[in-house]
């Protein structure tokens, strides 16, 4: 995994997301989720290309159930965009890079 993407856990989530000065996009994923694997390389690219606009974190829902439940994640991949600790956009399901970036950019 790229060094650009922060691994989040139930224990670190609030601290990292709350303290983030840039918007942070959190990828709720799991090892057994095929569509999650498909968007992983796209997120790696975005983490590099868009690093001046937002950062990216990932949270494995398999071992971090509390955070996934808190944000009512019922389908993965789900991408939540946080600005000042608040959810400002919710992207459910794998999408092509262009469509993904468009939805994120519209909410930055």
């Amino acid at each position, binding site marked *: 995994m790229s060094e650009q993407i922060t691994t989040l856990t139930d224990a670190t989530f609030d601290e990292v997301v709350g303290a983030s000065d840039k918007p942070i996009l959190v990828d709720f994923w799991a090892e057994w989720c095929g*569509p999650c694997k498909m968007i992983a390389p796209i997120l790696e690219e975005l983490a590099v290309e868009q690093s001046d606009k937002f950062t990216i974190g990932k949270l494995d829902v398999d071992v971090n159930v509390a955070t996934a439940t808190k944000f009512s994640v*019922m389908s993965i991949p789900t991408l939540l965009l946080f600005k000042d600790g608040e959810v400002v956009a919710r992207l*459910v399901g*794998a*999408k092509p890079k262009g469509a993904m970036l468009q939805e994120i950019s519209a909410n930055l």
Partner: protein
Amino acid sequence: MPEHTRVLIIGSGPAGLTAAIYSARAQLNPIVIEGEPSSTTDQPGGQLMLTTDVENYPGFPEAITGPELMANMRAQALRFGADLRINKVQVLDTDSRPFRAWLSDDDEPSITADTVILATGARSMMMNVPGEERLLSHGLSTCATCDGFFFRGQDIAVVGGGDSAMEEALFLTRFASSVTVVHRRDALRASKIMQERALANEKIRFAWNTKVTEVLGDEKVTGLAAQDTVTGEDRVLDVTGVFVAIGHIPNTTLVMGQVDLEENGYVRTGLGSFTNVDGLFAAGDVQDHVYRQAVTSAGSGCIAAIDAERWLEAQGH
């Protein structure tokens, strides 16, 4: 200038990738437009990307997962030089010679092709009842392997009576307290082995002769409104999750109005993979409403590659 290829393969399920392996080995340098990331069957790798164990694909005595099988086929196609691209054909013109294809974000056609192998597969059918669209991803799902995890300890339903429905129901028993199979008829369409497994599973219940009329819930699924198809009686099933597995429809949008379809909407193929359009071949679930297996789909991809190769030879290409 568009890029020209002798063989353009659209789709990357077993049919598309087998066609790619064969035409790459025949030195035809095929371009494969695989599709784009999605959480539906409309994604690179196709329907098998959303399945778990594939137990009936010959050569894998201990079973293999759908995504692994597709990764293997992809690697095999790459090994022989197939040019695989994560992209989507948005428009296909089969009136012109060569054929022309527009990919995502193209204003001009970016690929021209002497032959096209259409292997766009099929997608899950939805129920088209109130509440369904609104609650999709909020307790309603078409992918048990993606979303089953979120229903631990809950009572959920699977709608459908075929093999896909049984597979989803069985998979979901890993998480759910109970799985109710909701089926319009009083008998299953599923294969004998899948029926037996489902019927023997203690967590699986059956709601026979039951037609879903509405998915209930404001922000999350809270139940299913249903009607008894025999007595006409209305009832509510208390479930917090609904998985839809009621069948498939072929992905024919690209060739709509350009190629002959069967009455049920599948692409009509005559002998082998030939369609009524010269140089356009169809393989896999887009033209097969009868068998719809990974192995028959792969077999038809092979047929299409050989048909395309011989057609090109006969044309002097």
